[in-house]
């Protein structure tokens, strides 16, 4: 990257600094004046609009694209994309769609659920109970938000720049903080990766998760040295990885055919010094922080910052005497300038959105755009996302046998919800049996025998619920058997095993059999949430009509003839389903259950 651009970015960061705090606000009682809890965004120079004029030729092409760019294709979304003629038009629409932030909704819903109130009636800043509204709002946004592409990219980013609310990892009591972190990913999904890195580094959720907050310089008697946690994982997972890469994502090798490390332990220790001196904005350094404001960025405490000179990547030395913010900016620029970041992040984003095994050429094409959006800007996410979705390999008519990816559990579920219009029911009382008089009732809630917040027990996955910073699965996971034998990756298979196979199949069986309706209904008056299966029940009187529709919305119109034959044979078994509506309803459910369990559905091409 040219020096000029680096200076541009530095000045953006400085602007950010001076404006810091403006986005704050500790009032989280669900007021109607929500704040986006991050440093204000300053959009990078707008890229030259892409001129990709690839046409959307068919319903099939539209569905395929939408299963990558959204939380699942539906009849409406397919029609809409076709009406926009080119993919780029649709993408540009998405770039300009109003942003759906989660925090204001979680705050407001949480207040109705009394998540903001202690048992003794006093207010609390954050709590474990916000878990329920957090999940509710996440599913609501995934299935209904208009800014689908932004939400989808945010999910992808949340699987690279991981924080998790899992027990024992520091965030299980701070679901507003976790929500606010997700909003940072949403905000920068179409911004610049460099700005994202800054807001991630200074978010209190990350501060808690990777002990960035209250990381202090070496003390006087030398018994305490800086914490290496954020320094290491930031380099290893969020930016450049452990080995030097070519532009196409393949690993470089030295003269002895070994991989080349990008950094060593000493360098981690240097970066650890960089990330010293940050703590919660509304507390003193040593003050109890259990109820600190985790919705505004961490604040610099210079007396705890190591301002010595530090040797960073490529031998670049940060000058001594810099402030915590200056050191942070210098170091993030240093990392951002490393040639690895483009292929490392591009490859993972391709895997999250399109295919587990992109060719090196595909990675290189996207990485090139990451390095330069055409206007000399590096890290422009709009350009990167467009390049991933519009690449010739993604849109090719014929694809190699290794193409595609396993639909991860969250996306399989969201797709079904979108197609069959899952609606929350309205709770008549408050969520908690509390005696303190709070709880306004009449708030929407997805209600099943198993709460949405517990889905991950059966699915092996839930939003921001990974077991560690290493995500639910690694980008280079390869399951034993055919794929590993052939040197292919399949990250999502890391959470596929006998247990998740059985429990997820049972969960879908339960949902399709027990939480679906073929009648006119008012979601608000129902005790439980339901799939709306009226249309498909109507269609089921003609097996072909039913299968045509399911083929379109679930299978990109690429249902194999053998699957179609198998399904038709089953659905048309004489004297089993009958002509009554009850039988037609069951026919629809049979078809849906078998399709969503089939390998040709689960492997998204």
């Amino acid at each position, binding site marked *: 990257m040219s020096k000029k651009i680096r200076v541009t970015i530095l000045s953006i960061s400085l602007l950010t600094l001076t404006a810091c705090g403006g986005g704050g606000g500790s009032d989280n009682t669900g007021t109607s004046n929500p704040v986006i809890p991050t440093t204000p965004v300053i959009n990078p120079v707008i890229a030259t609009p892409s001129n990709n004029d690839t046409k959307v030729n068919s319903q099939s092409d539209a569905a395929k694209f939408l299963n990558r760019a959204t939380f699942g294709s539906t009849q409406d979304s397919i029609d809409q994309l076709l009406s926009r003629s080119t993919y780029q038009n649709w993408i540009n629409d998405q770039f300009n769609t109003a942003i759906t932030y989660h925090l204001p909704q979680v705050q407001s819903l949480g207040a109705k659920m009394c998540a903001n109130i202690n048992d003794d009636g006093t207010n609390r800043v954050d709590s474990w109970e916000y878990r329920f509204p957090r999940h509710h709002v996440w599913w609501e946004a995934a299935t209904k938000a208009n800014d689908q592409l932004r939400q989808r990219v945010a999910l992808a980013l949340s699987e690279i720049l991981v924080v998790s609310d*899992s027990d*024992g990892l*520091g965030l299980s009591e701070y679901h507003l903080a976790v929500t606010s972190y997700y909003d940072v990913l949403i905000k920068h999904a179409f911004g610049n990766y460099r700005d994202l890195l800054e807001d991630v580094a200074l978010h209190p959720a990350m501060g808690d998760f990777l002990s960035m907050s209250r990381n202090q310089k070496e003390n006087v008697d030398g018994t305490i*040295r800086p*914490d*290496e*946690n954020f320094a*290491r994982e930031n380099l290893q997972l969020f930016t450049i990885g*452990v080995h030097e890469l070519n532009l196409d994502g393949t690993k470089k090798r030295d003269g002895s055919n*070994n*991989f080349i*490390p990008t950094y060593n*332990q*000493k360098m981690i220790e240097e970066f650890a010094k960089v990330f010293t001196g940050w703590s919660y904005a509304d507390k003193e350094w040593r003050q109890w922080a259990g109820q600190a404001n985790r919705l505004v960025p961490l604040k610099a405490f210079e007396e705890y910052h190591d301002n010595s000179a530090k040797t960073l990547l490529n031998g670049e030395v940060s000058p001594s005497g810099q402030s915590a913010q200056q050191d942070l900016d210098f170091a993030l620029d240093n990392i951002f300038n490393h040639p690895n970041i483009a292929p490392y992040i591009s490859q993972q984003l391709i895997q999250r959105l399109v295919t*587990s095994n992109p060719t090196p050429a595909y990675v290189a094409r996207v990485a090139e755009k990451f390095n330069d959006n055409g206007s000399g800007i590096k890290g422009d996410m709009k350009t990167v996302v467009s390049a991933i979705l519009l690449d010739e390999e993604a849109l090719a008519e014929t694809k190699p*046998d290794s*193409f*595609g*990816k396993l639909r991860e559990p969250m996306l399989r579920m969201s797709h079904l919800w979108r197609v069959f219009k899952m609606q929350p029911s309205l709770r008549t009382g408050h969520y908690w049996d509390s005696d303190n008089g709070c709880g306004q009732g009449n708030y929407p809630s997805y209600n099943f025998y198993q709460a949405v917040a517990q889905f991950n027990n059966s699915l*092996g996955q839930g939003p921001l619920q990974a*077991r*560690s910073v*290493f995500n639910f699965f*690694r980008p*280079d996971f390869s*399951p*034993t*058997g055919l*794929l*590993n*034998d*052939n040197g292919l990756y*399949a990250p999502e*298979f*890391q*959470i*596929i*095993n*006998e*247990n*998740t*196979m*059985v*429990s997820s*199949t*049972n969960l*879908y069986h339960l949902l399709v059999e027990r939480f679906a309706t073929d009648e006119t209904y008012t979601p608000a008056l129902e005790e439980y949430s339901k799939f709306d299966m009226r249309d498909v029940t109507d269609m089921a009187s003609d097996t072909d009509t039913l299968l045509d529709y399911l083929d379109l919305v679930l299978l990109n119109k690429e249902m194999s003839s053998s*699957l179609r034959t*198998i*399904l038709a044979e*089953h659905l048309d078994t004489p004297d*089993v389903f009958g002509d009554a509506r009850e039988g037609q309803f*069951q026919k629809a459910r*049979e078809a849906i259950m*078998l399709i969503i*369990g*089939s*390998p*040709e559905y689960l*492997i998204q091409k």
Partner: protein
Amino acid sequence: MNKIQSQTRRHFLKKLALGVGSASLLATQSKLQLMQSAMAMSTDYSGFADHKSLVCIFLFGGNDSYNMLVPYEQAAYNQYNAVRSNLAISRDSLLALKGDQYALHPSMPDMQALYNTDNLAVMGNVGPLIQPTTRAEFQNESALLPADLFSHNHQQEFWETGTTATGSTRQPGWGGRMMDMLITANADQNSPALFSLSGNSVWQRGNMPLDFVLNPYSGVEQIKAFEDQNWPRYKRSRIAAWQKILQQSSPSLLNQQLSNTYIRTDERIGNLVEQYALAPEITTVFPEEGSFSKQLSTVAKMISIRENLGMKRQIFFVGIGGWDTHGNQLTDHAERLATLNGGLSSFYKATEELGVEDSVTTFTASEFGRTLSINGDGTDHAWAGHHLVMGGAVNGGQIHGEMPELVLDGPDDAQDTGRLIPKYGIDQYGATLGKWMGMTDSDLLEIFPNLSNFNSTDLGFMS
């Protein structure tokens, strides 16, 4: 053992590994043939009359074993206290082990009792090594070192396989490799006998599909949608359709992999569900909270039905997270160790209830130990660590291995921040356990890629 013989075997295995990377289906074919010949070379264990089970407890995140096992002798304690500063556990609160040289963290009273009755041993100073490595060799870069030291996932992989991948294909884990060979001891050689209670680990995957992931809470359940029933009327037709779907051919390798996984699950749950449902309840009380004790009580249940399953050898993988104590360590680590203590203690009692305390050995693993130096309220990624081995068959009440000197920049420090170099390799630790399981030296040399680089293949903590 014969070093030359082991070299030949390793050469053969290397050839085997080379056949793996090709992107063609033919590679699988030829690999299968090679695998079969590799199988044929390993020892026949069908003569085993006794039962033995091995239980791996993986502490994900890197356990700070320097605060789990602390020097108790005053001078050594002082050294520890100086380096650990405000993260040091006060000597008064420590639980002294017999001999009074070392003590356990105050959260582990049951482990203290098991140690003092010789049912628990400590194996000190273990970690990922390719060959014995000194400080000088580390610093002048003359020793072969595990790749990507101090990184969680890379060191987990090394712990579980004895190596880190250098291409896109991964080496099998040593738990899985043991089962590949030990399976000849069991009645049904296709029936999975390595059970994970903690999802997919690399450790459990051998060359043959003998691992099976159980649900820590419910063990194993039927797939209800496809459970064989006459009612409703469409059930049989649905099952038939499902079977046909799984048999569909597809050129997609991803499709095939998924179909295979479904089919394997389908084939194998039937008998397990049946036997598991018949298992008598374990009456030993396990701690109520958390997945860890649930995992262990399910392990006990699986051991209790070993005879009905026709199994002489079983292996288990149990996982517990939250050991990456960079911050808030005093509180968090104490909680983790209490959970570990409670679960292990109940599990030991459950093996006594089943009368198998002498034939079940439980051991800890963790990707690395942590720095001696501290970062304020936590510690960072390091290298060597101490491990617990529990059961009636251990040489208990002893600390095995040469213990490190707990000083910065000392003779065991890789650099100057207290990342101590292990004295003993994972390969040696695993081979000692494998030998107890009854495996031959030649099989162990085949499983553990670095074992022949060490003088001793038996660290002596098993009787």
